[in-house]
């Protein structure tokens, strides 16, 4: 019973890739590397369990490092957005 009370940290699960908030400088470097602005990034909802676990806020950019079947390691970046009401 005591085990259940403990909060699960999704980031520690082996199936969840590494999520981290990027600093402003990193975000600017990313934008200039791909010649884009924030709206061109893939999105992630603010209430995504991994976003909550990283304490990211809306309009933060999250860097995700995944294991890749083709490349071994692959980086991806997502903009945190509010989940629209449905």
């Amino acid at each position: 019973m005591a085990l259940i009370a403990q909060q699960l940290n999704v980031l520690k699960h082996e199936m969840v890739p590494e999520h981290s908030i990027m600093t402003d400088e990193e975000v600017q470097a990313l934008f200039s590397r791909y010649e884009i602005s924030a709206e061109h990034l893939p999105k992630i909802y603010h209430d995504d369990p991994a976003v909550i676990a990283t304490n990211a806020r809306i309009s933060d950019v999250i860097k995700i490092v995944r294991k890749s079947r083709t490349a071994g390691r692959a980086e991806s970046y997502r903009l945190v957005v509010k989940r629209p009401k449905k």
Partner: protein
Amino acid sequence: MPSPKRIGKIDFGLLSPKEIRQMSVRKIIWADTYDDDGFPYPQGLMDLHLGVIDPGLRCKTCSQKSGECPGHFGHIELAKPVIHVGYTRLIRKLLRVTCRECGRLLLSSDEIEKIIGTDISATGDSLTEKDIKKERICPHCGEQQLKINFEKPTTFAEIATDERGKKVENKLTPADIRARLEKIPDEDLRHLGIDPVVARPEWTVLTVLPVPPVTMRPSIILENGQRSEDDLTHKLVDIIRINQRFKENQDAGAPQLIIEDLWELLQYHVTTYHDNEVAGCPPARHRSGRPLKTLSQRLKGKDGRFRGSLSGKRVNFSSRTVISPNPNLSIIEVGIPLRIANEMTIPIRVTQFNIEELREIVRNGPDREDVRDPCGANYAIRPDKRRVRLTKGATSEDGNLEFIAEQMEPGWTIERHLRDGDIVLFNRQPSLHRMSIMAHRVKVMDGKTFRLNPAVCPPYNADFDGDEMNLHIPQTEEARAEAFLLASVQENILSPRFGGPIIGGIHDHISGIFMLTHTRRWFNKGDAISMLQNCDIKRMGEPDKIEDDVPYWTNKQIFSHILPPTLNMVFQASSCENCDQCLRENCDRDAYVRIVDGELLCGTIDKKAIGAFDGAIVHRIIRQYGYARAVQFIDDVTRLSIRAIMYDGFTFAIDDEDLSKSDYGQIREVLERATHDVGRRIQIYEDGQLEPMPGRTEEETLEMQIMQVLGKARDNTGEIAGRHLGLSNSAVVMAVSGARGSMLNLTQMAGCVGQQAVRGERIMRGYEDRTLPHFKKGNRGAEGHGFVKNSYKSGLNPTEFFFHAIGGREGLVDTAVRTSQSGYLQRRMINALQDLKVAYDGTVRTTGGRIIQFNYGEDSTDPMKSSFGQPVDVKGIVENILKEAV
């Protein structure tokens, strides 16, 4: 060109009555179309202000001729308002969320704030029907709300409770509804996600109806000279007639009942005018009984405006016919019947450089009589765009060929026939992947079918049991260049699906090359040349041996002639059994293939080496020598293998499934033993002695044991049959080489068909406690549950036949379900992915520049240029240098 602009926002709104009257050029009041002289009635449905369709007349609005006038809207003033069927759900929602008295939203401002927050523009959230409790009291005026009933297609009613507590239904007329919708304040509409500037809700109840221009509902003149009106016109006639009658009755002070009936009739006609397939409404029909095609039917469905006319439409310069095989064609060619080649043309501009050639083509005329004749032309287009049909005529004076040939000069265009070498696009539906449309080179042939090399069947998924294919002729230089560079057959030998060749030998190609290259044989010069005669071979290599002054070449040498001389490969053939200890060169099945400097030293060439989907040699040739050499190799190997299979001959007949008497005895013995074993296990189970397997009941355990015993029995019969049937048997050759079929098929033909299953279990359904009345109740034996002892050769007995049909149907149902599901999945995938592209920086982006993937495939590897998914073919490179297995 102005720079592209970004669309900030699109408003979807309703036409207000004011706007409808504003855009109208004429009020329509008469239901008649044309008078007795065939002239349009003024203020009738074909009024000349609405545009012209008859040649010779001029539009009274824009004074342009038929064909130039785009048409103009008119309008009908409806005697009473009617509901627009397309908006009944919106009307229902609005009636349910607003007050019947004051028209305000049934929520206090506090409640609204709680649901959608303070600032609407920030979130874009809006209220839904669910946010409002049913039959509550209006927070603004205190009015008790009533339940709103909606009955398809357009009937609304309020449910009130009378003094005695009985429910009464009060019908709401469209006029009542319109009055209620008018009362809803603009501010409340914004909370519901409606912009009142472009869409006031009362506009969903029509008081005035737009009449579309005659250009979108033209009348046609039949052969007998009668006019036939468009379905929309018919419907508009109905609406105007009822509208008239309504007005007359109203003016005459007709009883309420008649007025109501007419109102409902008007509603019916307006409803079916918009949509003639609404639920709960009988469709309006033509006099012949055919349902009318009204506005919604013009847009909806497969043949509607969107799917039928915009995203897909019929095209010119295309043809379609049955396909048939021709292994002597190159894979990059397609055989075109002369009749089609004479009909399909390519426009060629006349220049000072080609004018003499084109003159000759024009002189050849429009009727090429033989495939060997030079091509002619059907039309000449003069610089003023006038088209002149080329005609031969009995004498040179009758025709215009000589005249045109003399007259033409640079600036003209000649539409010449297809001829050998032209680039055309060839397609077979369903076009599921890029290889379903490939560019081929024309080969004009006799006959009436398209001809293709069977090696290109796999990418099209074609066979010759009556399949038809389409041909498209690119009409410009750019189109031809693009088709050739991107879609030609050689560019598509490698499939992006798995990074290997999808074009290669099939069926007889594989049987033939297997029989040629298996073990070691010698051929004299005549035989060797006859096999290689269709291949592109310049000279024969040195013979392997000379006996009695007669030179002999080995079978492997003959095959080596078509290999590039610097090819080095080592691999296991399809026939390899994956022995624990590979004997390599000494493999007793000759399955270890070794090619050194373009010489096949050992091993058998089969599916693994040249087959579609495997094609190890084809793949290596592409990576080492390029597509052109691979085309050459596939052409050669298909021609060689067909000659080789004809050298020995290859047939399969019913007596190829015959076994010896002792084999049949052994098979019977095996099956008897198995049946006996099954009976013994059932006995153990019925005695309660069966030890269940972990996690299984005793019954499940018994079933598994029975399946296992019977499965093994069938395999044993296969082994017995396999011992008797060697490589002299065609079915064995096909199974071992990978050409077609498997040893299991052979087992079922010669040995025993085996257990029939439904969902992986023995057949259990049917009668009570038994499958068929031929068996005792509670019977668990092999025969009673779908075990087929017989072979296809010996024939099935009636109960076996029935069980076989049960098992067979499962397979059919599965494929039917799978194809429909995967087809829809494919459609959705294509819709989602069709406009994505890989940008120059390696990112995958939408047309708007949004990033989908930061690096294409995460490793930037084009799967089509990969080696079965790997970016580098290390094994191939090492093999090629060491000339040994890695």
